[in-house]
């Protein structure tokens, strides 16, 4: 190769990665970063989207949201829904993973059960919502069973009574989401070196001691990163609540996303909805930063 040709080759090598990345960066820039800037701008305008020349509104829309008790109720419901979901996803996922990983069960049975235990994960949020609406109908099978064994005395309207609605949607979401933990923890369990347990056996460790001193510490990195991701994703819940309760009755299951959606597309108050969307974005970004720092530290 001549020197000229070689430097030409080097130049190509330097430009190439940017060319390969350009379609992706174009899409992310135009359809993600630009809209994010737009929604922030909307939140400071009067009659955003609806008028061509919106006037500057300052912090008015943020003020309106923070003065709205429904916003605070939504925030609280979102936190309850999310924390309960993550804690139970983790607990159920862990218990199921440990059970499936036990050498006391036949490997054939293990494989079949693993497939069946993952099932809830394969269904779309809308379908999960429809299934639970059928199960929890006042005349449905859950009430019928619970009444038969005497846990409840009369039919409970799970989704349409303000006392139970939030618990009912949270339960449906717990059912739908534990397999992510289960699958990840199962993979993690298989990665723990066998000699750790053999050494513990020689020292005469009990089963619960092995769980506390070997299994859980070894799984900690997975538990933390999945919990963070699950928290971020569960906070964004929309279809499950939209289809089961629509945020009702009397706002008792209103979460940040349904609150924002209603502001935007039922009241057509797109400016105030944008302010609410920016608040959600900031919460998410805070958690994401935490997640990325954790991933990098690993």
């Amino acid at each position: 190769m001549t020197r000229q040709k070689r430097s030409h080759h080097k130049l190509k090598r330097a430009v190439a990665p940017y060319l390969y990345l350009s379609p992706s960066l174009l899409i992310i820039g135009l359809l993600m970063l630009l809209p994010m800037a737009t929604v922030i701008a909307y939140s400071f305008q009067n009659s955003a989207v609806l008028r061509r020349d919106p006037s500057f509104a300052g912090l008015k829309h943020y003020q309106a949201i923070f003065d709205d008790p429904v916003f605070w109720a939504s925030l609280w419901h979102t936190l309850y829904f999310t924390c309960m979901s993550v804690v139970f996803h983790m607990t159920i996922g862990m218990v199921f993973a440990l059970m499936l990983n036990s050498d006391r069960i036949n490997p054939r049975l293990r494989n079949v059960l693993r497939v069946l235990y993952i099932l809830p994960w394969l269904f779309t949020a809308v379908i999960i919502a429809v299934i639970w609406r059928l199960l929890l109908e006042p005349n449905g099978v859950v009430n019928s069973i619970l009444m038969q064994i005497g846990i409840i005395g009369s039919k409970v309207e799970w989704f349409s009574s303000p006392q139970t609605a939030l618990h009912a949607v949270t339960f449906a979401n717990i059912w739908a989401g534990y397999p992510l933990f289960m699958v990840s923890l199962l993979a993690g369990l298989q990665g723990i070196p066998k000699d750790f347990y053999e050494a513990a056996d020689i020292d005469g460790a009990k089963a619960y001691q092995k769980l506390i001193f070997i299994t859980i510490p070894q799984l900690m990195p997975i538990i933390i990163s999945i919990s963070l991701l699950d928290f971020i994703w569960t906070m964004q819940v929309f279809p499950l609540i939209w289809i089961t309760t629509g945020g009702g009755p009397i706002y008792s299951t209103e979460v940040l996303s349904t609150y924002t959606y209603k502001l935007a597309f039922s009241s057509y108050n797109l400016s105030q909805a944008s302010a609410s969307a920016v608040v959600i974005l900031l919460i998410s970004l805070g958690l994401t930063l935490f997640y990325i720092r954790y991933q990098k530290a690993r």
Partner: protein
Amino acid sequence: MRKRNSGKDRLITVALHVALAAGLFFAAFPIYWMLSSSFKSNTEIFALPPTILPKAFTLEAYAAILGDPVKLRFFFNSYFVAGAVTVLTVLIALLAAYGFSRFNFRGKGSLNTLIISTQTIPPITLLIPFFGLVVSYGIFDTYVALILTYLVFTLPYAILLMTGYLNTLPRDLDEAVAVDGGSSWTALWRVIVPISLPGIVATSVYTFLLCWNEFLFALTLTKSTSMRTVPIGIQLLMGQHAFEWNQMMAMSVLGSLPLLLIYLVAQRYFLAGMTAGSVK
């Protein structure tokens, strides 16, 4: 080694199997109930006491769904949009992943962080500006609106998945092409793509799944019945015939079929995609 056959040990094994059965009931009963209800008549669904197996097995709910062109259109729309987005996503992500995996360049670290963080952007935040954009460009209620907006959410995952896969392939393969005077473009298509099929399949499966499940954008960025996708179709069915539970269940079963089939056929690829976020 564990002492087998002692009384306590046998008790633990029995208890474990009881717990496994309880777990199975928790995981699978709701799904079984959907399936069995889809084969019942509407009056039987709320029969007391509930019938575990359909007493009068009927396909009337499926016939009602599959005989209705409006509902078939929901399925077509879902398959079409998810298919188109999958093809575009995989192509674009493959190029980006190749750039990330095979080159060192200025800004690589921060671009990678940017892509990881875009995974967690709340869809509701982008919905309002998307609505504004889609209306002002006159693509409200079109496939283009859905395809473009889905692309934004599928791309980050796809890039991370593909980069992860390409990083597992030895570099000597494409370096051999460079030694022979071939460009990196040639190396990509001649060498990398043919051996990346497992990664491409995993990425496609996951992308398809994200699109198939999407609800919020489909709800907001389309309006006419002929543009609606399956999840919205189920919601519409619920609004119109709130008491046709067997039809809703049949539609849910049909709407879950693609994912169930993909899962059963390509379990490994499926799980690779689903857990991609956590096992980097």
